């Protein structure tokens, strides 16, 4: 069967990608002098570190959309919550080095605070912040998911609701009195633990951590698909009623996936913030989540490897196009999406299969033997 061969190809692909991303690129960055043409610049490392966090986000979208049939249009909310949770720690690590030479973050001084709000205090601890990176997105997803799935909110209604959720959160974070920096968000970071955030070594470490997080998310998600849980997940996608009437409390299964996706997205957000140097409410805006869905669609949903290719590919294209054709960038992205939806429903990962199908159809047309009667194939090809 072709299935096992595809799986083997995927394992090889992931292994090679992991070696390149986690071994070769950092080595070329550290070991070669800048004058060497093969040298990978700090800028590139930083840029790809950001893409890797996006890829984790895309995996989150894919386990929901591609594997469970839950199209979340608000996945960036969890990404941003993770980013904010870690950003709070980074803000407090600035200490007196800010513009106003105060213990308080700059925006608080600016807004006339004279004391750190109580919910900020524990974020002085790195470990507390790290726990919050996991728990805040996880708990928000747990509560929202519990309510949504218990009320049987499905399909497009679920999508709209997730979008409304992230939009609502976005508006809230825009407010100055919400104590998270309002419009400007959190920025101007100086230290993580006691390392300089902006040094090449720290950035490289963050890049490596992003790579490991991506690898871990991929491996766990792939493993999950091999379990009975994964089978139930895809069964829910294909025929939720059948699953429900086969005795599975589908809402619990969906809730698990939703929380899992939120947690990995939150971790990705936490690595994104120090690499980009800022986290602000625009990260929660609905367009950002839609973009993540586009990456998954472009790469190929329901494949896990597709979202990685899609997110890195589209973002690399974006970086290039925004510099080369700043005015046309959005048209390029939109056009790409339309083309993919029209001609490549399975995305980039589906191209080899499409070519194979085309070839088969061609051979069948040329073959003199009549095609067997339709009775043997399914009449309900939806």
């Amino acid at each position, binding site marked *: 069967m072709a299935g096992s061969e595809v799986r083997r190809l995927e394992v090889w692909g992931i292994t090679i990608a992991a070696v390149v991303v986690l071994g070769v690129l950092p080595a070329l960055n550290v070991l070669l002098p800048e004058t060497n043409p093969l040298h990978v610049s700090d800028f590139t490392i930083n840029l790809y570190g950001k893409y890797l966090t996006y890829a984790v986000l895309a995996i989150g979208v894919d386990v929901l959309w591609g594997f469970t049939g839950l199209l979340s249009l608000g996945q960036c909310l969890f990404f941003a919550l993770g980013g904010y949770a870690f950003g709070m720690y980074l803000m407090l690590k600035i200490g007196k080095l800010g513009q106003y030479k105060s213990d308080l973050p700059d925006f608080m001084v600016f807004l006339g605070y004279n004391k750190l709000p109580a919910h900020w205090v524990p974020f002085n601890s790195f470990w507390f912040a790290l726990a919050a990176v996991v728990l805040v997105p996880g708990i928000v997803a747990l509560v929202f998911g519990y309510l949504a799935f218990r009320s049987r909110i499905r399909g497009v209604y679920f999508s709209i609701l997730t979008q409304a959720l992230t939009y609502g959160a976005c508006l809230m974070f825009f407010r100055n009195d919400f104590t998270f920096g309002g419009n400007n968000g959190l920025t101007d970071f100086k230290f993580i633990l006691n390392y300089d955030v902006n040094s090449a070594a720290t950035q490289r470490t963050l890049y490596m951590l992003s790579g490991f997080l991506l690898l871990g998310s991929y491996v766990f998600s792939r493993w999950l698909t091999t379990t*009975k849980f994964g089978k139930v997940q895809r069964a829910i996608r294909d*025929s939720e009623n059948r699953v429900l009437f086969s005795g599975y409390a589908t809402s619990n299964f969906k809730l698990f996936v939703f929380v899992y996706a939120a947690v990995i997205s939150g971790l990705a957000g936490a690595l994104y913030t120090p690499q980009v140097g800022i986290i602000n409410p625009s990260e929660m805006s609905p367009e950002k989540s839609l973009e993540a869905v586009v990456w998954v669609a472009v790469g190929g949903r329901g494949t896990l490897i597709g979202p990685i290719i899609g997110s890195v590919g589209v973002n690399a294209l974006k970086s290039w196009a925004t510099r080369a054709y700043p005015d046309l960038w959005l048209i390029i992205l939109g056009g790409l999406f339309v083309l993919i939806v029209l001609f490549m429903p399975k995305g980039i990962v589906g191209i080899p299969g499409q070519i194979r199908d085309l070839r088969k159809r061609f051979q069948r047309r040329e073959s003199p033997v009549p095609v067997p009667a339709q009775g043997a194939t399914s009449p309900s090809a939806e």
Partner: protein
Amino acid sequence: MKTEFILTAEGVNKSFDGFKAINDLNFYLDKGELRTIIGPNGAGKSTFLDLITGRTRPDTGIIEYRGTPVTKLREYEIYRLGIGRKFQTPSVYSDHTVFENILLGLEGSRGVWTSIFGRVTSEQRERIFEVLEIIGLKDRAEVKAGNLAHGQKQWLEIGMLLAQNAQLLLVDEPAAGMTDEETAKTGELLLSLAGQHTIIVIEHDMVFVRQLGSKVTVLHQGHVLCDGTLDEVQNDERVIEVYLGRKKKH
């Protein structure tokens, strides 16, 4: 005097936006019985199954399975009591193999954690092949369900109910869209299951109903019009008037 009904429905009413889908329905089913429900479109046949399986809830009335009221339970809880349902349109997991479809129907734990960490035991494997043998899909175990013929999908779905060891099988139009040969095979399958399982079949195809040869209940406007053997109901004046009158032409 019969002591035990496996399923009873008494005084059941259900309306949708003023339309009375089920109207003071009373229904009793013996353990091990095979019963066919017929009736014109909109008679409330599928709604009745929806009410039994928890998909919708009655406005008034009681439905009891082995003495347990089911009208307040959720779908998966009702399933766990031993009531399995086959939908009108074949509902199989098209992306899964035939084997996996049965596996997901298999009796046993339905929890999130057990499904993550559980492994398929050799006993389960044996049981799956037993079921595949019964429904005649043993040699297609590794085929994706989406690639099966229409009739095979219907059998596969019945197989999923067998795997869960459901005591009461609710089978909604199993012969719809089947060839004559497939219909006959489906009839044989259901007949072979009757006795060990209690079965309600909803059907339109009179040839198929005749093959089953079971007691027939006629539903009309959400109410039981009459019941008896197929010959009895076919000669019933009221039935001829509402339903069989136009069928008798062929």
